[in-house]
């Protein structure tokens, strides 16, 4: 009678080796990822520095007052909220400001392990021509659904195409309908606005999109906001400006 169970002793000797190889591969992947992230971050900062220098813009590394400057998702959510790489200046004679906004959220899996996720957005705003009640025009896209549903009643316009692409929430629906004229809807349906949110909040007209960018599209985004501001009906600006 023998104790041969049919398994070769060599297989058991190979198991530590396999684990070792997997560990090395994982470590290598982590190191490569970190190096890639550092280099991408440096490239981004170099691009921002170049744009700031050539455009005669101002730059501040971080501004804590901007963290609470806006309300509504993604602002006011999560922890470690920061507003960094704050760039300001003028475009076509009108002022603007842009910054990278980030926050962290924690989640717990079925085994009780927590993981932290960093969320980043590029926020750009210009002064609005009047103090507006809060109106949010957000694309019906994957990244927005990932942020969670927005509270409030979704406003529907007479354009089915617009309603399919955008979600509109407003503090005052009458004002929102006044903003959404035919030309405004046409402007919002153009490709350069796709996947960006547009928010009227007080004296700021703001747009945000996922991922902090290297600002190469800055002029296009500011130009888009200025187009939107120009399409606001004059009577609404007059009605919302006290004393005029």
């Amino acid at each position: 009678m023998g104790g041969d169970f049919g398994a070769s002793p060599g297989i058991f000797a190979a198991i530590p080796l396999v684990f070792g190889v997997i560990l090395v591969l994982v470590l290598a992947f982590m190191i490569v990822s970190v190096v890639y992230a550092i280099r991408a971050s440096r490239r981004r900062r170099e691009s921002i520095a170049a744009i700031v220098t050539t455009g005669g813009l101002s730059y501040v590394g971080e501004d804590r007052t901007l963290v609470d400057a806006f309300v509504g998702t993604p602002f006011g959510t999560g922890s470690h909220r920061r507003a960094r790489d704050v760039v300001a200046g003028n475009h076509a004679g009108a002022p603007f400001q842009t910054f990278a906004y980030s926050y962290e959220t924690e989640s717990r899996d079925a085994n009780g392990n927590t993981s932290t996720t960093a969320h980043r957005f590029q926020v750009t705003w210009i002064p609005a021509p009047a103090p507006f009640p809060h109106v949010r025009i957000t694309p019906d896209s994957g990244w927005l659904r990932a942020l969670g549903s927005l509270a409030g009643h979704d406003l529907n316009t007479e354009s089915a195409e617009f309603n399919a692409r955008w979600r509109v929430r407003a503090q005052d629906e009458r004002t929102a309908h006044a903003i959404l004229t035919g030309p405004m809807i046409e402007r919002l349906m153009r490709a350069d606005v796709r996947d960006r949110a547009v928010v009227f909040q007080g004296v700021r007209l703001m747009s945000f999109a996922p991922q902090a960018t290297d600002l190469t599209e800055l002029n296009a985004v500011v130009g888009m906001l200025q187009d939107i501001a120009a399409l606001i009906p004059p009577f609404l600006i007059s009605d919302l400006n006290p004393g005029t």
Partner: protein
Amino acid sequence: MVLTTIIGLVVLLVLIGIPVWGVVQYNALVRLRNLVQESWKQIDVELQRRHDLIPNLVETVKGYAKHEQSTFEAVTAARTAAAAPGSTVAQQAQQENVLTQALGRLFAVAEAYPDLKANVGFQQLQQELTNTEDRIAAGRRFYNANVRELNTKIEMFPTNVIAGLFHFAKAEYFEIEDQAVRQTPEVKF
């Protein structure tokens, strides 16, 4: 025993839940109906403002284009019809469309008279009329959105049961032609 308890709970849910649901739906319908009425009143105010601007406008244009009598009469008649009380929403929309077309012809006449276009009073009236028409368009969008919501609620099951019981009627849409924003013409010397 357990079955009796379950049946009792279901009966209780039905006896309490259904009336509560009914009250909630009734109140929602009332709120929407009031919103529709209120938003129509806002449009009515702007339509009235539009009607009030027209006599001054006609008189100003008459001062420069005395022989365009048929155009003035068409605008005056359309304005009288639109300003008459007692029209339904659909009738009002039709009357406003006729008035808009008549005004279009009036402004086309004004284009042929540079002195008229340079008249400050005429420019101010034109700007006021443009602003009023923009307000009407904005009010129309808000009103129609509320009508859409009310009518949908009245038609959909099971809210249509409550709507039918308490005689909620569907509202009419206000379908007028949106005027493109008319720019006040710049007078170049």
